[in-house]
C-alpha cells in the first residue's frame, strides 16, 4: 500500500471492472450486462433518436433542478428538488446509454451530455426555460412530470424495444413521486396567500404556450395529461390558460436562447479536460 500518496493507493489493485473510484476507471456503463439486441422490425435510427430526446428532456430538467441547490426556500425542498433531479439524471444515463448502443456509434453517455451543442439537443423547450421563482419551477415540474409519467406508463407496456420499456417502467415509479410532490405544492401555493396565488397564476400563464409541443399530434396523450393538470388546478383554484402555442418544436431542434448558457455551465469542465476520466 502506498499510503503516502493518496491517488496511488486509491488506484492500486483496481482493475477496469472496479468502477467505484472516481478517477482512472473510464466509462461506467449504466446498462452494463443488459442484452443489447434491437428487436427485428424496430427502426434503430428512430429508436436512438427517441431515447436521445427523452434523455435530453431529463438532463436539462435535472440541471435546472440542481440550480435550486443552496437557493430553495427550505432545506426539505432543496433535498426534494435535488432528489428529483438525481432520479432524472439516472434516467438520462440509461437513455443515453441505450441511444449509444442503438445508433451504431457506440458513444457513451458523456459524449451526448458534454460534447453536443445546443442545436443538437432535442428536449422540449419547457424544460430549458429559466427557473424563475419557486412557483414557476414547481408548476413546470408538475406539467413535465405529469406528461413524462403518462408517456412512460405507455412505453412500459407498448415500446417495441424491451430495454426502453424497462427504463420506462422503472422511471414511471419515480415520476409518480415527482408528480405527487409538485401537485401538492401547486395546490398549496394556489390555495395559499394572495402573493403565492398570483405567482402561481403567472407561472401557469408563462408555461401555457409551451404545453402544446409536449403532445405533438398525440391527442390521447394530450387528453390524459390535461385531465391530470385540471385535477390539480381545480383543487388549487387556478386555470391553465388556453393560448396560442409558441411556434416551432424542441423535438425538431428549435431552441430558446436559454439552453446554450445552461449547457455552457454543464459542459465547461468536461470540455476543458476532454481526455479526463471521472
Amino acid at each position: 500500500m502506498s499510503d503516502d500518496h493518496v491517488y496511488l493507493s486509491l488506484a492500486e489493485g483496481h482493475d477496469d471492472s472496479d468502477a467505484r473510484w472516481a478517477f482512472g476507471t473510464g466509462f461506467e456503463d449504466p446498462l452494463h450486462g443488459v442484452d443489447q439486441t434491437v428487436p427485428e422490425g424496430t427502426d434503430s435510427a428512430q429508436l436512438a433518436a427517441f431515447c436521445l430526446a427523452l434523455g435530453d428532456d431529463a438532463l436539462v430538467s435535472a440541471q435546472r433542478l440542481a440550480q435550486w441547490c443552496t437557493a430553495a426556500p427550505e432545506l426539505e425542498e432543496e433535498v426534494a428538488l435535488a432528489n428529483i433531479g438525481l432520479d432524472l439524471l439516472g434516467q438520462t444515463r440509461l437513455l443515453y446509454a441505450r441511444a449509444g448502443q442503438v445508433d451504431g456509434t457506440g458513444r457513451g453517455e458523456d459524449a451526448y451530455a458534454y460534447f453536443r451543442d445546443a442545436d443538437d439537443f432535442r428536449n422540449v423547450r419547457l424544460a430549458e426555460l429559466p427557473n424563475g421563482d419557486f412557483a414557476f419551477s414547481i408548476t413546470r415540474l408538475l406539467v413535465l412530470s405529469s406528461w413524462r409519467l403518462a408517456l412512460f406508463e405507455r412505453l412500459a407496456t407498448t415500446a417495441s424495444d424491451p430495454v426502453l420499456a424497462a427504463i420506462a417502467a422503472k422511471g414511471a415509479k419515480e415520476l409518480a413521486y415527482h408528480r405527487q410532490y409538485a401537485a401538492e405544492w401547486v395546490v398549496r401555493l394556489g390555495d395559499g396567500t394572495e402573493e403565492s396565488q398570483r405567482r402561481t397564476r403567472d407561472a401557469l400563464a408563462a408555461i401555457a404556450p409551451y404545453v402544446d409541443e409536449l403532445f405533438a399530434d398525440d391527442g390521447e396523450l394530450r387528453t390524459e395529461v390535461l385531465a391530470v393538470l385540471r385535477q390539480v388546478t381545480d383543487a388549487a383554484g387556478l386555470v391553465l390558460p388556453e393560448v396560442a402555442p409558441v411556434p416551432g418544436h424542441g423535438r425538431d431542434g428549435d431552441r430558446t436562447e436559454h439552453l446554450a448558457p445552461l449547457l455552457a455551465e454543464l459542459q465547461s469542465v468536461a470540455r476543458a479536460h476532454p481526455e479526463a476520466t471521472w
Partner: protein
Amino acid sequence: MVTALVSVDSRRAWRIAAQVPDPEMPMLTLADLGVLRGVEIGADGTVVASLTPTYSGCPAMAEMRAEVAARLRDAGFAKVEIRTVLDPPWSTDWITPEGRRNLSEHGIAPPGAAPSGPIKLTLSPTRRTVPCPRCGSADTEETSHFAATSCKALWRCRVCREPFEYVKEI
C-alpha cells in the same frame, strides 16, 4: 457428479454475493434488499451475478457491483461477471422479512405494500400509518417526502418526539 459440484459452487457463490451489505443502509444485505436477482455459474466456470438498481439514479449501484465482484474474486472465483437487470423494476416488496426487521431495529421504518397498477394522483391528504420504529406509536407525521437517500422519506413521532427515516414504497 459434475452437476452436483457446480450446484454446490453456485450455492456458495450466492451466499458470498448475498452477504454484501448495502452501501447506504449497511444493516441490510443486497439479498435482504432484493437487489441481488441471481447468481449462476456458466459452463466455463464464470460466475454471473445479476443486480437490479433500486432507483434509476441510485449512486450506490457502482459500489454494489464492484463489491460483489471483489468478494467473489476473493473467494476464489476467477471469472466474475456482473449483469444489470432492469426488468421487472425493483420494488420495496422485495425487501425480505429479515431485512424489514433489521431496518426497524436500526430506527428506520420499513415500507408498506408497494402500489400496483396505473398510478393515480391523490390530492386529499393520505392517511398512511407509519408506526414509529422506536416507540411503536402510530401517532407519526411526514416531515419531508425526500431524504438523505432516494429511497427514504423523513418522518417524526409525535409521542417520543424522535425523527426517523422511512423507506417509502415503490
